[in-house]
């Protein structure tokens, strides 16, 4: 059943994307291990940078799955991303063992100097990778489940949902800032030494982490593709386009929203967990509502309702950010980002990829005329107009 489910997703385009991602995932780390004099040598800096972009791309993909395909504009996905990151961070903290500055075999440094006497219960188990791996998926999934179960059942939709997801991540931001929470307060978790026994800063480990990110993105893409290609995916789009209609033909919409929201949260959690070892720190700043909104703009730039769009958007915007925040342009970054938000919503409502796709579609097909209104807009308008 699962294989059939996945198999259905495999069309030619999916092969291309998967192939490309895996090629990048294997080739770049290999090239980074070459001698710097080698003409195709890739500096570690680039690996670290693109590794981060890949994690962001996976986050964008997860946002797109709920927003682009189901019409749920979540402004709280940074929370799931950060929770996944924290789960990984906790594992990495426990791996430090007695090599912390205070040489305490059990307690992480920040607990030592704040006079904690024993490990809080919620840190138990994180010394095992398998446990952390489960938590990376389970914690964001559980939060999404609880939150979604209440919200979707009470039919909180549209802007209300966006605003309370924002409130959710904001509340978590404040909570994780508290030192009493036992997650290192605003400094977060850092100073990681190794992962699964390998030095986390070794070029080879970096390469593997990079590959893992590319692989996770490829898998995320494949899963999204399979979901979209299934009847489930059709129902999602149906919910996005006309929620009431879907209810009146007998689909329990809240169930669908819940499943896709939880799936998306889990993907975001995985993205966060791969992000943390590559960046080397996780702190409450990752919960900031602004981060969620930025992830949404990646999707909007790339094109929501397409699966390539969010990946392209995340890469484009973050490349722009890297480029703009260096040198003389530094002061203008926020102008550019702000203008991008405005321009995309005004002139490119379908995003870069969406626009390209629409143009490509308009040319060869004769059976269908191009849609006058973007269905997404129509559905959102219908949703909000009610």
């Amino acid at each position, binding site marked *: 059943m699962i294989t059939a489910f996945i198999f259905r997703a495999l069309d030619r385009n999916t092969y291309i994307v998967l192939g490309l991602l895996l090629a990048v995932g294997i080739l770049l780390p290999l090239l980074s291990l070459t001698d710097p004099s080698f003409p195709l040598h890739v500096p570690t800096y680039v690996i670290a940078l693109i590794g981060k972009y890949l994690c962001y791309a996976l986050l964008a993909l997860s946002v797109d799955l709920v927003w682009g395909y189901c019409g749920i504009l979540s402004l709280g996905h940074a929370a799931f991303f950060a929770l996944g990151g924290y789960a990984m961070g906790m594992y990495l903290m426990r791996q430090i063992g007695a090599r912390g500055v205070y040489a305490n075999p059990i307690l992480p440094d920040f607990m030592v100097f704040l006079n904690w006497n024993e490990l809080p219960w919620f840190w138990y188990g994180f010394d095992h990778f398998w446990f952390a791996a489960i938590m990376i998926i389970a914690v964001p999934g559980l939060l999404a489940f609880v*939150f979604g179960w209440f919200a979707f059942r009470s039919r909180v939709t549209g802007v209300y949902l966006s605003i309370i997801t924002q409130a959710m991540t904001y509340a978590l931001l404040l909570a994780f800032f508290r030192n009493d929470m036992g997650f290192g307060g605003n400094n977060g978790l850092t100073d990681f030494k190794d992962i699964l026994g390998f030095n986390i800063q070794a070029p080879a480990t970096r390469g593997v982490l990079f590959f893992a990110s590319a692989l996770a993105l490829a898998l995320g893409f494949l899963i999204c593709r399979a979901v979209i290609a299934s009847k489930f995916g059709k129902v999602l789009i149906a919910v996005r386009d006309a929620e009431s209609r879907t209810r009146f033909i007998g689909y329990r919409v809240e169930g669908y929203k819940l499943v896709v929201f939880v799936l998306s949260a889990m993907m975001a959690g995985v993205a966060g967990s791969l992000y943390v070892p590559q960046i080397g720190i996780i702190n409450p700043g990752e919960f900031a509502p602004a981060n969620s909104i930025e992830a949404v703009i990646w999707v909007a730039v790339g094109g929501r309702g397409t699966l390539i769009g969010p990946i392209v958007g995340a890469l484009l915007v973050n490349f722009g950010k890297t480029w703009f925040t260096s040198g003389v342009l530094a002061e203008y970054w926020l*102008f550019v980002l702000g203008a991008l938000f405005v321009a995309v919503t005004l002139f490119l409502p379908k995003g870069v990829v969406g626009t390209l796709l629409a143009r490509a579609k308009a040319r060869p097909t004769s059976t269908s005329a191009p849609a006058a209104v973007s269905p997404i807009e129509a559905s959102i308008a219908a949703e909000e107009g009610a």
Partner: protein
Amino acid sequence: MTTLRPTKPILAFIIALLAMFALFRPAYGADVHPQVNALGQGDYAALESAITALAATGDPAAAAVLDALSNGDLYVRKSDGAVFKAVRAGDGYALTDLVTGTDAGTAARSDVTKIKVNNKIRGQIRAASGSLTLMNPDPKLRYAAAADVFKSADPAQIPLLDSVIAGEKDTGVKAMLVQARAAAVLKSDMSSDEKVAAVAIIAARGDQDALAILTGAGAAGADPAVKAAADAAAGSIEGQLQLWNGVQNIWYGVSLGSVLLLAAIGLAITFGVMGIINMAHGEMVMLGAYTTYVVQEIIRTSYPGLFDWSLAIALPLAFLVSGGVGVLIERSVIRFLYGRPLETLLATWGISLILQQAVRTYFGPNNREVGNPSWMSGTFDLGHLAITYNRMWIVVFALGVFAVLMLVLKRTPFGLQTRAVTQNRPMASSMGIRTPYVDALTFGLGSGIAGIAGVALSQIDNVSPNLGQNYIIDSFMVVVFGGVGNLWGTLVGAFTLGIANKFLEPYAGAVLAKILVLVFIILFIQKRPRGLFALKGRSVEA
């Protein structure tokens, strides 16, 4: 204060004696220049004794000299060690002779050194000049002096107080003096009957200060009768203060609520009435605050006399600036996005980034100073509740803005058109209402109100490019909690959240209180997705 440093009682005693002399109006004549100049010699310890000596002369100029010293206006001329009052004039200082009050020429910056004071010296000066001004003709000053004496509670001053009380006509000042005397009595070694009487006087105050004095009086080692009386009085005050604590929480909640209301009320129009998720709302508030700053800067440099009017002048300007920017945003961006609220969210978020960075580039990233006009500074007591003027005015102002807005929306043709357009755009347009015009003006109104909220918030918060960011989430919470499209909901929502927050704060701490309120709102929205005062209606099915 249980441990008295040696200088103080001596000083007070001398002052007391001199003050009694003062009642008999003896003639002065001695030149106090040496005593004044002594202030400029040596370290803090030397300064302390110099102050004592100066006060001991009882010269009428002494109070003014001490006042200037406390304000940090006294300078020593390096060449001859003479002490002057100096004010900045050009590159140097203009000097004034302290005794004669005559102009004493100027000095270059490097020629004079400031006489530094610290808190301890300031306290000493306050006690000294408190005693010196107990006979000032101005009852307000006398009252303040009596309050200072009450705080210092020095037994050595009892004789002085006795004589002053006898001559005092003003009942308010007199009551204060009596309390000051009682406080001093409790510190003295007078009879226990006297002390029990003093306990009763202090207990009548019933406030935190009284409690502190009574706790001190009831400390171990006190006379059993005094201790019993003090403990009983302290107990009853504590009970009363507990009650006042609740009142205080409500007031703080109302005050926080008024800030939330101000921040949210513009949003209640742009979001609540028009359905635009204006993430740049906070920046409209910020622009209002910066307008206040600019107005004050101009007033400071050109028309210093108008400073107390600065907020009144800033109000209409802030409304125009923020409103104008709002209209501009509406015309250039938002009008293309009607019916797509989620898109307005993204676009206005972009605008908010641009506005923030624009302000940061133009004004710099630092906080800007916005002063409180005199009528917004200070505190007054209502029972045992200390109400600060700025908070009070902000509550009044928030309610005023709310009332005016209600009037505009309910009683003017513009309000009627706004409601018509937001309820049924095509119908309104076919009835001859110029909907684009109304849209722009409504958005401008919402933004303008955010701007005047900025004027008020500049009085209690930072004026920095980030100002708006601190309010945006709270504002949305208030509007959503209160019920979108319902201004009364916003009013009730703001005060409910404010009071809830302030009641939680003492128990949970500020951080947890805020988290709890957020969680509460999230849960509440699940229960009532359309907020407190949502309009029920037949679902218009798509």
